[in-house]
């Protein structure tokens, strides 16, 4: 089985300002691959390059070197918006459209892709049920009528709308209170098993990473310094792994 996502020696440097002056390197020599049904957690401190790496995958940032393949195709040759429609994207601040109803928010990518209205409505309702929201109660609401946890449930449903094989999640539960957060983490685990998607999940929370990741990629100063299963992570002697484990203990 081939990997859904393959990142090969990706590098990203900020555009330099002056002549000949190279910008600061935020991500360097990052390689990993993610198969269907697998969740790779990118763990690291703030500024370690995990969000940058995520944005290189859907080309919100353009890698300066290296190659990134989605479903075996290099992303470089594709139109950026086409690529992104095939990749679910969930961010910490959710970014629901305040002037759209919940149903319209979820149906956005299908609408861009030209699905007919009936199919979009069916899909939105199906996804609302999947993320634990009653379609009859929530489909017609606007984002400001939802709690933080409900908003992120809609955010996840929206990312799944066009059934993409790959999902990118950037600290999706980072802004939630601890109880809601734990609740969404548990449900997310069930979703992982049920959906069988390839996922890249960015977090700085070790416990979240251990709970949700099939593998953990630990990032430090723009490099992946450890890549392995949660069990291997626990046993690792790498100082950054130890630092994270001790902080969580």
């Amino acid at each position, binding site marked *: 089985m081939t990997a859904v996502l393959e990142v090969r020696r990706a590098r990203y440097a900020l555009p330099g300002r002056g002549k000949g002056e190279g910008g600061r390197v935020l991500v360097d020599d990052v390689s990993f691959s993610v198969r269907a049904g697998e969740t790779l957690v990118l763990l690291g401190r703030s500024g370690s390059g995990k969000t940058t790496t995520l944005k290189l995958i859907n080309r*919100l940032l353009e890698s300066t070197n290296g190659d990134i393949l989605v479903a075996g195709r290099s992303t470089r040759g594709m139109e950026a918006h086409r*690529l*992104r*429609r095939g990749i679910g*994207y969930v961010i910490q*601040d959710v*970014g629901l*459209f305040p002037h759209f109803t919940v149903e319209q928010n979820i149906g956005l990518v299908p609408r*861009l892709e030209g699905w007919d209205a009936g199919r979009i409505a069916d899909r939105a309702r199906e996804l609302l049920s999947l993320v634990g929201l009653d379609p009859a109660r929530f489909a017609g609401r606007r984002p400001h009528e939802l709690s933080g946890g409900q908003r992120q449930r809609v955010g996840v449903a929206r990312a799944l709308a066009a059934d993409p094989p790959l999902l990118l999640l950037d600290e999706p539960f980072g802004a939630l209170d601890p109880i809601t957060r734990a609740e969404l983490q548990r449900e997310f685990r069930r979703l992982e098993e049920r959906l069988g998607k390839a996922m890249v999940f960015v977090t700085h929370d070790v416990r979240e990473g251990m709970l949700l990741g099939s593998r953990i990629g630990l990032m430090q100063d723009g490099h992946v310094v450890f890549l392995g299963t949660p069990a291997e992570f626990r046993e690792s002697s790498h100082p950054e792994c130890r630092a994270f484990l001790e902080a969580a203990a």
Partner: protein
Amino acid sequence: MDVLRFYGDNSREALGLLSQHVVLVLASTLVAVAIGVPLGILLARRPRWRRPVLGFANVCQTIPSLALFGFLIPLPFIGGVGARTAIVALVVYALLPIVRNTYTGIVGVDPAVREAGRGMGMTDRELLVMVELPLAAGVILSGIRVATVIGVGVATIAAAVGAGGLGVYIFRGVAVVNDTLILAGALPAALLALGADGLLGLVERRFVWR
């Protein structure tokens, strides 16, 4: 009360001037929207142009209106005596609030909303039409409202370049020192401004999303 009697005696002329006034304001505001909204969008995309363009619009705003009308008279194509000159001057005044508010409205869209839209694969055009403009609509409309109210006031001076409007009564009243005549022009102009303000304010309130 004298004013009411004056209208009774001159109803045809008064209505004619009122409608001239409304046409001047409507035409100039529409032209200003047609120029100002795209310009504001452009500024939001090219932040480097913001200072010079808004600076220029600001300077235009400071030209005394009577002087601006005067400057325009000798110019070919856009100048001369009549409604066209008046509309050009009114557009100049309406432009700043519309450009500035369009820029502010679009730049003010929540970055998370923009990132989500882009991340889900919206093109620049889709993002603009489906997200940025609807979310900025309230702020843009408030700019149009300010521009319209300014326009109603400045349009009274259009009479000085022979464009008609309610200013005709005001200028005539000043010339012959007749308060009733001045009021006959000023009163409906003030009411018109209030009416436009209230009406556009109502529309604006429909575009509040949270």
